[in-house]
């Protein structure tokens, strides 16, 4: 009897250890193949993953959002007003950073900003309550890197198409003393070439850090709760309150990171359009 009880408690402890082990802050970034494990293009696997699923969700949500603002009324309703606010925001950002040449980039910057914004926000939705686990694909540099490379490629293409080899004058700021030109050129070139990395990594790191933090704090809440009421009061409850605040902060970060990505792309496009 005693032995059974002890065994039971050991088993309980084992379960608890297993439950604790499950709160892995990095588990949320795990990619899983949902379909097409054997889909290949030229030998490269293109399985449909949970990441791809949430890209699709973001795309559909974005299409629904913008389509809802397409009533084209002279006096806009709320939805149309919201969509027009976003297009006006992007238009204004390009006008401020690139000038009137920037108008043609509105479709790209709008898509970029809204795609990242929707991805970030969807990843923060408390859908776990209803059993769906949102996946934030912007917390993967393999995704943000593609967007960064895309933006950087557009900058390069526009820059060289518009200014030919004169584009290299971008790396020699006005007024640089002649003996300094070789060094400055190298420094500017490096800072230019770092741009796609900083662009992609910034978004990835910001999103990942926030999600890890939320997960770590939630593990405090769960572990504290499992360890007894005293520890729950000391550690669990403050962690929970902190989580509430950090959730709000993460919503802000989600918007800011999308904005920063779009804004920096605008700034880089300005270099390509107008040199400096």
């Amino acid at each position, binding site marked *: 009897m005693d032995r059974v009880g002890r065994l039971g408690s050991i088993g309980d402890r084992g379960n608890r250890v297993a439950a604790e082990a499950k709160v892995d802050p990095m588990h949320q970034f795990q990619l899983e193949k949902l379909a097409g494990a054997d889909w290949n293009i030229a030998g490269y696997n293109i399985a449909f993953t949970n990441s791809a699923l949430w890209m699709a969700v973001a795309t559909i949500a974005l299409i629904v959002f913008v389509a809802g603002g397409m009533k084209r009324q002279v006096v806009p309703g709320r939805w149309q007003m919201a969509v027009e606010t976003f297009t006006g925001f992007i238009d204004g950002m390009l006008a401020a950073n690139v000038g009137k040449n920037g108008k043609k980039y509105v479709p*790209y910057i709008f898509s970029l900003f809204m795609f990242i914004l929707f991805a970030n926000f969807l990843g923060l939705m408390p859908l776990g309550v209803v059993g769906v686990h949102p996946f934030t694909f912007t917390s993967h540099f393999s995704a943000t890197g593609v967007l960064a490379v895309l933006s950087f490629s557009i900058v390069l293409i526009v820059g060289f198409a518009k200014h030919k080899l004169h584009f290299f004058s971008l790396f020699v700021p006005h007024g640089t003393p002649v003996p300094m030109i070789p060094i400055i050129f190298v420094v500017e070139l490096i800072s230019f070439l770092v741009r796609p990395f900083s662009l992609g990594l910034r978004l990835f790191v910001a999103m990942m850090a926030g999600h890890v933090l939320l997960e770590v704090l939630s593990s405090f809440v769960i572990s504290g709760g499992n360890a007894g009421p005293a520890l729950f009061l000391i550690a669990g409850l403050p962690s929970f309150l902190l989580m509430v605040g950090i959730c709000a902060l993460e919503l802000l970060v989600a918007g800011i990171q999308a904005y920063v990505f779009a804004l920096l792309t605008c700034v880089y496009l300005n270099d390509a359009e107008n040199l400096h």
Partner: protein
Amino acid sequence: MPQIAQLGEFYSSQIFWLLVFFGITFFVVGRGMVPKVMETVASRDNQIAADLKAAEAARAQADAEEASWRTRENANRAEAQGLIADARSKAAAVTAEKLAGVQARIDAEIASAEVRIAEARRSAAAEIEDVAADATREIVSRVAGLSLDDTAVRGAVKENLVHG
């Protein structure tokens, strides 16, 4: 860190699907919908600008019309004042003329009346003289028994009448 641990397995899938879905976003939303939304905004802005311009033009026209109405009104008023003054002076002239005519008639009537009065007075005086002369002669003839010469009586009466 699954981002790195799973990179080798999933990078092609990540890149492929991101390009697919971002491509859909770009072509459907960015190229398809955003220009229409911005066109709506631009057409609204144009319409507002046009409306404002039309309102401005209408106001300018209203101002011009008011100004022209005002000059017309002023001219009309001046004309009316002129007419009134004219009529007033004309009426005054007519009145004065009429008054003058009446005055003349009255003066004439007064003059003729005075002539008549003077005449009446003179004839009355003559009659009184006659009567007085007769009475005097009668009185003298009765009292004194004298038969006086008519001319002498008359001269004495006239003298007495004149000197009271």
